[in-house]
């Protein structure tokens, strides 16, 4: 703490004393001097009056003798106060004067011829200073009066002698010096304990509480010192207590600070993580955006309020609107999707996705009316976007221009239709003629002819079956296979298919067991044609790939929770492990199967898989491997199949 530079206290006191003494002595001197002057003046006037009386008497006596008393007059002249003396006739003529110039001159004065002594104030005729004039009557000739005029100076310098002034000054200086010394001594005596107190206070200010004052003046200062020491003791004690408290608090603060520091670091780490996360998220976002922008399909994203928040390049191309124009707009105010059939607005796929939170596909034959008003056939899907809480926060809609696809589809459809007709027509006639021949309608056949005709018949049947399967695959693959479910009793339905396989199973001497669930099942929605295809295929496979006379097939239908589980178990050739992955592939045939039944197309299980998956079910198998038989499983949801519009049904294979 900087100490303000101040004039020391002792200096102030000494200065004070000096000023007071100086003032006191000066005023005493002045008063004394003034008083002295008054008394001196009275004294001089008295002295001079008596002198004038003596001088006048001696002049009177001498004049009678005819001489002037010069010795006395000279004596008078020597007095420092006497300015002038005149002997004046009553008519104003100066008979005698100290100044020769005044001799014979005439003066004017009211006091000429005065018969008694007069003392009057007057002015010196030479210097103009204030003077006292003593006028004394002289009777030099009887009956003729003269006056003696004496001018006395009233100026103080003339009143005092130089030596007396010097002496007075000396005495004054002496007294002042003695007084000054005494005052300084006194002041220092008073100041000493104050200085001690001051240094004590300063050392306390520096934090030294062990300082003790030793003031032995025996007066109030000593008391003050004692009180000061006492106070120090108390302060020290209090300070020790405070120190402890402060120490504790400091420790506490230290701990808190460390805790805070830890938290700060943790927060910094979190912030870094968040930053990193942010960057990653941003990157992901950018990446996603880039993907969405660059994707070959039109993509737009809407928020909860159905407002467009993303609109990619392809969407711009197809719709004719630019992203700049449409972002922020409600999507249905910009993009008009309508049904091809009745041109009515079709926003179901978006609404449903938003409502149900499930991915929706646009119904077939949807048109998008673009900026120019052109109708563009589109296919699309809409997937809901969910926030952290699983709430639908928006929707991503992907759509594409299917004009070309439609064209290809139509061509494919036409091709399939033509192929179906063109291939099946000659096959039909071949089949019919073979039948006519085999029945002997064209004359009895030899045994060999019959044998050949049977071979041709079998090949024709195979050809017809293959054409039908290809047609089915084509329809399933193009998604044009329609599904027309009916309520059927599943166990009866299966039983019927087993019964129908009679000829084939009799050939192989097969025994087919059907294990139905104990409780009668409720009816299930299944497309009988499609489902028949699946079950028939599994059953015939089981028969085909079982060795003759060792053909035991077990069909089992179970209800498992919300699913139906159908299994077809055989003890046939089995499926080698290495081929198990490919068993559902199109045209794939196991080596063993190829050997056991060369005429197989390799399409049956492929078709089965497509149908079952279309129905929302699963198909799989278990096989221990070669020669150990196979079990195929088909799991179908309880609700069964849902209706689906399509152009084609399935052809019998």
């Amino acid at each position, binding site marked *: 703490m900087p100490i303000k530079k101040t004039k020391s206290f002792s200096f102030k006191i000494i200065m004070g004393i000096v000023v007071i003494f100086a003032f006191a002595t000066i005023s005493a001197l002045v008063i004394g001097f003034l008083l002295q002057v008054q008394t001196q003046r009275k004294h001089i006037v008295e002295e001079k009056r008596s002198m004038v009386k003596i001088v006048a008497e001696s002049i009177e006596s001498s004049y009678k003798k005819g001489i002037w008393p010069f010795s006395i007059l000279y004596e008078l002249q020597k007095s420092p106060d006497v300015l002038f003396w005149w002997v004046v006739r009553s008519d104003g003529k100066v008979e005698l004067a100290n100044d020769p110039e005044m001799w014979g001159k005439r003066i004017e004065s009211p006091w000429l011829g005065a018969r008694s002594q007069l003392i009057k104030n007057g002015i010196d005729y030479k210097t103009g200073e204030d003077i006292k004039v003593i006028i004394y009557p002289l009777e030099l000739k009887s009956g003729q009066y003269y006056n003696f005029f004496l001018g006395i100076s009233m100026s103080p310098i003339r009143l005092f002698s130089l030596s007396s002034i010097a002496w007075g000054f000396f005495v004054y200086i002496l007294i002042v010096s003695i007084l000054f010394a005494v005052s300084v001594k006194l002041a220092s005596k008073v100041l000493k304990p104050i200085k001690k107190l001051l240094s004590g206070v300063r050392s306390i200010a520096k934090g030294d509480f062990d300082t003790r004052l030793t003031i032995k003046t025996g007066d109030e200062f000593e008391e003050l010192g004692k009180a000061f020491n006492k106070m120090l003791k108390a302060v020290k004690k209090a300070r020790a207590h405070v120190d402890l408290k402060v120490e504790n608090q400091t420790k506490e603060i230290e701990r808190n600070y460390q805790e805070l520091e830890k938290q700060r670091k943790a927060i910094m780490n979190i912030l870094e993580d968040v930053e990193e996360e942010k960057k990653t998220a941003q990157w992901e976002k950018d990446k996603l955006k880039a993907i969405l922008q660059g994707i070959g399909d039109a993509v737009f994203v809407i928020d909860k309020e159905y407002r467009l928040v993303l609109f990619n390049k392809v969407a711009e191309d197809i719709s004719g609107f630019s992203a700049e124009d449409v972002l922020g707009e409600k999507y249905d105010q910009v993009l008009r999707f309508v049904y091809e059939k009745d041109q009515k607005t079709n926003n179901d796929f978006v609404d449903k996705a938003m409502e149900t939170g499930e991915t929706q596909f646009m119904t077939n034959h949807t048109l998008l009316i673009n900026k120019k008003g052109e109708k563009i056939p589109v296919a699309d899907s809409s997937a809901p976007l969910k926030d952290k809480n699983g709430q639908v926060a928006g929707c991503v809609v992907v759509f594409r221009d299917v004009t070309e696809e439609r064209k290809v589809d139509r061509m494919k459809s036409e091709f399939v239709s033509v192929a*179906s*007709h063109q291939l*099946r*027509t*000659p*096959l*039909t*006639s071949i*089949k*019919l*003629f073979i*039948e*006519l021949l085999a*029945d002997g*309608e064209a004359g009895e056949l030899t045994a060999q002819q019959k044998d050949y005709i049977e071979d041709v018949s079998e090949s024709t049947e195979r050809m*017809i079956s293959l*054409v*039908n399967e290809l047609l089915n695959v084509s329809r399933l693959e193009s998604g044009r296979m*329609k599904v*027309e479910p009916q309520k059927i009793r599943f166990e009866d339905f299966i039983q019927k298919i087993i019964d129908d396989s009679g000829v084939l199973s009799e050939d192989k001497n097969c025994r087919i067991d059907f294990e139905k669930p104990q409780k009668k099942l409720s009816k299930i929605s299944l497309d009988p*044609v499609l489902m028949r295809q699946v079950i028939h295929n599994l059953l015939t496979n089981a028969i085909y790939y079982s060795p003759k006379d060792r053909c035991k097939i077990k069909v089992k239908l179970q209800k498992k929770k919300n699913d139906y589980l159908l299994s077809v178990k055989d003890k046939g050739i089995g499926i080698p492990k290495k081929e198990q992955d490919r068993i559902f592939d199109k045209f794939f045939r196991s080596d063993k199967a190829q050997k056991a039944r060369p005429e197989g197309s390799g399409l049956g299980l492929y078709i089965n898989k497509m149908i079952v998956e279309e129905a929302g079910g699963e198909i799989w198998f278990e096989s221990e491997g070669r020669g150990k038989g196979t079990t195929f499983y088909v799991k179908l949801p309880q609700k069964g199949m849902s209706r689906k519009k399509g*152009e*084609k*049904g399935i*052809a*019998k294979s």
Partner: protein
Amino acid sequence: MYDLYISKKDKNFLNILKLKFMSENKKNILLAEDDRFISKAYKAGLEKAGFEVIPAYDGVEALKKIKEKEPDLVLLDIVMPEKNGFEVLEEMKMNKGMKNIPVVIISNLGQESDIKKGKELGVLDYLVKTDHSMKEVVEKVKYCLSKK
């Protein structure tokens, strides 16, 4: 029994007579089928089974012959030149004389929608050619005629 009295020459004549007599009782079937080979095969099979077969090779010819011959049953293909099977069906239903003639469709289309459409137009049955043997077709024809 006749063989005993009639010479070989007469037997020939008798055969002709017999055929003539039978033909009078024979059921007429109009076979509308554009493919010659299939038509020929069906004709052979059906004649063997004792039916008289009137072939027609397109829709217009089929309609004309149905009007003229008033067959007992029409076997109708769908995919045909000039007029397809459904158009023929529709015209038959519009015509008083033809609307009660039973129709069985023989086609290779075999799609549910076609079958449904056919049934709506009052056909008795819908046969997919490749799926049915000659015997089955003959059986079906006999069954449909017996119900008439």
